[in-house]
């Protein structure tokens, strides 16, 4: 025939098949699960009913294998497969998980091209038909030329039963005149959604090379290791059963035995007694060229699926009449040892290994010689040996104490999915190591609903307040702690004021020994903390009492952490994270070694109730916030008697810190109903009482209100977090040695203006669905009884009130007014903006800041 003409004929035939299948696939998309299940049941039943006829046909046509075993395979492909897939949801909504907000819908692939082998012809066709029907796909078969009749008959039986049960016309199609060109035309046909190829390496590579999505599964070269702990009769029985099943044609069947030296004699005796024959060296030399085609360097089709007797005869070797299995003792694996290749007939290589390691290495060599990723098998009663074997060898199926052929295809000897298409992973140039089944023939559509993250509210379990509560606590409650040894961490001022001595005396009276670490200066450094940890390790206290302003409390928190968990480095702790619950460095709870009491003597940081501590790296000139709920103090004592001596500037600075905590947590993206009232109350208290406390430090009421405001704001921001006000204050403070609260005050007004404007970039937070900052600032203004007739007015009036407050407190209006040299500021501007951008506090800001935005805010603060 004219080759050009035959080409166009082939193409036309492929087009017809594909058009029909495509139409069927389109129609099939309308079916529901019930209709599909009815079709699959009918098809499985029809296939099972024809098991004998199909087995006859296959043996007759291919001249390979054993009728009785093919009957089992046909039943496996229908009954077992059906049983496995019958209850699986494959249509519409197949999974719904309210907890994760994920729903999965199944979408059919369309047209599947099924390429089937000569070795398991009818069973593979029926298997692929059933999984295609179950998933509402159409399938076109391209069977092996030498198994065409039986394969197509199997396809026809399933098809007719399916259509009778309501399946779309043409849902199963088959090639009547197979040829290389036809396979090629089909594999590259635009209508093909997936190639499902089972066969030799060449075919699988062609399938993957077609450019179409493909699940191609290739050859194995399965070693079976008989460990010294093996049940020998069981091992020999299973290997014989498996390797003689359908004359060894299942690709998962054993190709070589590797036996442990200690039991070799017992194994060999048992093998021989069960009908195995060890070939003599001279016989191996002859038979190897018959079994492995020397020209093609692969198994000869003359022996595939033939009996041991037949193969021996073919080689002119006389074997005992009861021989069922041939064994060839081999010394090596590789091209020079032809019988170390895959051979789908009852002939096995035979190796003896000195120990487990050597056995595993032989198995590694075998799998790497044409069977990587397929299957391996082990007989052993030693779990450690099984573990080592499994860890090392690369095989999709590792079968333990079972016949590998029947084990590999699943379900009969184990709970693997039953399948006649066994994935070999990338070792076999495949996409999967799975036993291919319905799940591989679906497009899973994941519907993902928006999920908001869980929030929480965490504060110390005990917070004491009211004037004099320090004394009451230390004369009464302290005993309940059962502490024996305390370390008081404080600053020079606490020592000067006599508070440290007072606490030490109370401790003594309560029978608690104590010592003092008073070496904490403002803005504690890494060095201070390291020194403090050394003291802790020496004194080994079971109680840490932090007494002083934010600096000693922060220092003590960091020291506590390093004392309890010396395995954490400072670098781990300051690692920036996006979500405090997903951070890479996870802190175990503290409290194993010591409990923690925080007693603030300034009204500012709220550190006595927060999960934060700020540590200064004096060498790098940076401040690192460390955040973790583990460092929340156990007990906080809020005694306003302790703040009466705070000098006015410190009162002003710390009070403005309170204000910025409350403001930032109110506009934060994670603000909640739990934190809002705290933030608003703190803001009210600051506006009302901070000027009084500043102007008259002896005003006990103002002091008390400010002390409470500080802790209340702390409770708000430890749960709602801060924003760029603090990011900028951290770096401003570190660069120009400005007290923390004052640094916050300098940027506060430009920050409000920036946050209230339309964000340049939205913060990626599921809990924050739309910009709210402007309205939130207006709400604050409303609480302060300012004019909020429009949100814009509210924001403006808030800014004005803020400016007035600063003025009252004697805080310069700008950094320029505060005397920060302009050239110095300009030179450090970008650097400061970049550091602020990377500050941990930026995460919850209502507008995700660009570095340029931060530069503008800083410039505005400079004035």
């Amino acid at each position, binding site marked *: 025939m004219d080759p050009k003409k035959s080409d166009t004929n082939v193409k036309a035939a492929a087009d017809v098949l594909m058009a029909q299948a*495509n*139409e*069927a*696939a*389109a*129609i099939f*998309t*309308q079916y529901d699960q019930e209709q599909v299940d009815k079709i699959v049941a009918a098809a499985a039943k029809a296939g099972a009913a024809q098991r004998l006829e199909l087995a006859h046909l296959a043996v007759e046509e291919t001249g390979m294998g054993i009728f009785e075993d093919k009957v089992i395979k046909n039943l496996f492909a229908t009954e077992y497969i059906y049983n496995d897939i019958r209850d699986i949801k494959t249509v519409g909504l197949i999974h719904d998980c309210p907890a994760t907000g994920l729903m999965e819908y199944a979408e059919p692939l*369309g047209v599947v091209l099924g390429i089937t082998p000569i070795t398991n012809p009818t069973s593979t066709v029926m298997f692929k038909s059933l999984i295609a029907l179950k998933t509402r796909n159409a399938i076109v078969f391209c069977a092996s030329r030498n198994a065409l009749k039986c394969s197509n008959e199997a396809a026809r039986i399933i098809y007719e039963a399916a259509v009778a049960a309501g399946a*779309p*016309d*043409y849902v199963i199609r088959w090639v009547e005149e197979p040829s290389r060109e036809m396979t090629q035309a089909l594999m590259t046909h635009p209508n093909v959604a997936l190639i499902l190829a089972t066969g030799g390496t060449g075919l699988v590579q062609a399938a993957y090379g077609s450019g179409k999505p493909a699940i191609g599964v290739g050859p194995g070269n399965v070693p079976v290791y008989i460990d010294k702990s093996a049940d020998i009769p069981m091992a020999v029985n299973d290997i014989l059963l498996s390797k003689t099943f359908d004359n060894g044609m299942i690709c998962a069947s054993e190709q070589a035995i590797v036996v442990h030296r200690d039991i070799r004699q017992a194994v060999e005796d048992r093998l021989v007694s069960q009908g195995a024959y060890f070939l003599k060296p001279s016989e191996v030399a002859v038979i190897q060229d018959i079994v492995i085609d020397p020209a093609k360097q692969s198994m000869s089709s003359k022996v595939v699926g033939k009996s041991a007797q037949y193969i021996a005869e073919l080689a002119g070797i006389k074997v005992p009449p009861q021989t069922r299995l041939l064994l060839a003792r081999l010394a090596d694996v590789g091209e020079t040892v032809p019988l170390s290749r895959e051979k789908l007939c009852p002939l096995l290589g035979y190796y003896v290994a000195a120990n487990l390691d050597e056995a595993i290495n032989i198995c590694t060599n075998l799998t790497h010689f044409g069977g990587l990723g397929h299957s391996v098998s082990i007989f052993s009663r030693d779990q450690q040996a099984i573990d080592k074997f499994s860890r090392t060898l690369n095989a999709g199926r590792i079968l333990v104490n079972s016949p590998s052929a029947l084990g590999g295809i699943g379900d009969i000897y184990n709970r693997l999915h039953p399948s006649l298409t066994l994935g070999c992973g990338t070792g076999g140039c495949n996409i999967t190591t799975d036993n291919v089944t319905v799940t591989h023939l679906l497009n899973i559509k994941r519907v993902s609903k928006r999920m908001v993250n869980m929030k929480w509210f965490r504060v110390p379990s005990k917070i004491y307040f009211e004037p004099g509560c320090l004394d009451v606590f230390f004369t009464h409650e302290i005993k309940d702690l059962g502490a024996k040894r305390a370390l008081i961490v404080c600053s020079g001022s606490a020592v000067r004021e006599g508070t440290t001595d007072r606490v030490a005396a109370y401790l003594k009276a309560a029978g608690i020994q104590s010592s003092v670490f008073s070496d904490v200066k403002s803005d504690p450094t890494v060095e201070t903390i390291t020194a403090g940890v050394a003291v802790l390790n020496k004194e080994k206290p079971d109680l840490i009492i932090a007494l002083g302003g934010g600096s000693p409390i922060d220092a003590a928190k960091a020291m506590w952490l390093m004392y309890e968990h010396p395995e954490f480095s400072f670098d781990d702790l300051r690692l920036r994270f996006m979500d405090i619950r997903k951070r890479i460095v996870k802190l175990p709870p503290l409290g194993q070694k010591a409990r923690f009491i925080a007693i603030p003597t300034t009204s500012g940081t709220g550190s006595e109730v927060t999960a934060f501590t700020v540590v200064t790296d004096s060498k790098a000139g940076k401040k690192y916030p460390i955040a973790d709920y583990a460092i929340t103090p156990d007990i906080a004592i809020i005694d306003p008697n302790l703040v009466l001596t705070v000098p006015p500037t410190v009162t002003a600075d710390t009070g403005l810190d309170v204000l910025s905590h409350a403001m930032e947590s109110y506009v934060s993206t994670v603000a909640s109903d739990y934190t809002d009232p705290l933030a608003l109350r703190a803001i009210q208290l600051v506006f009302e009482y901070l000027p009084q406390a500043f102007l008259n430090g002896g005003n006990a009421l103002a002091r008390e209100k400010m002390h409470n405001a500080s802790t209340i704001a702390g409770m708000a921001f430890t749960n709602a977090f801060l924003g760029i006000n603090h990011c900028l204050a951290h770096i401003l403070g570190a660069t120009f040695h400005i007290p923390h609260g004052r640094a916050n005050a300098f940027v506060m007004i430009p920050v409000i203006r920036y946050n209230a404007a339309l964000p340049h970039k939205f913060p990626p937070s599921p809990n924050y669905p739309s910009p709210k900052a402007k309205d939130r600032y207006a709400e604050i203004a409303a609480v302060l009884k300012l004019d909020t007739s429009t949100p814009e007015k509210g924001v403006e009036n808030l800014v004005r009130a803020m400016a007035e407050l600063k003025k009252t407190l004697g805080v310069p209006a700008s950094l320029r007014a505060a005397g920060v040299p302009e050239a110095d500021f300009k030179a450090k501007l970008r650097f400061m903006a970049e550091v602020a951008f990377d500050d941990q506090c930026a995460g919850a800001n209502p507008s995700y800041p660009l570095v340029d935005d931060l530069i503008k805010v800083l410039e505005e603060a400079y004035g």
Partner: protein
Amino acid sequence: MTVALSASTVNPRINILALSGRLSVETEGQIQPQLMEAIKQSPHGLVFDLEAVAFVSSAGLRMLIVVYKSAATSGTKLAMIRPPPEIYKLFKLAALDLTFNVFENEAEAVKAICP
């Protein structure tokens, strides 16, 4: 499956044939002559309204193809409106959406047939 023929309110020279129910092997035998008859009565063009069609089978789909082919030979213009989304998707998968001349609504279909 039931069919109902009426004149288009947009352009009375064009007819609308509303189909409803399952277009499947059980109904295809009786429906095809009715569709052919409708075509004959609609020399200026006919629009199939599929809004109430619940299912299209293989046979039903092929019958539609046959009907469109014969209309093409007789020179009658056909269009289709409002197929339910599952059925429109099916036409798309079978690459028939263009052949079937599918529109969102009557006005568009009528305009396309008879500008």
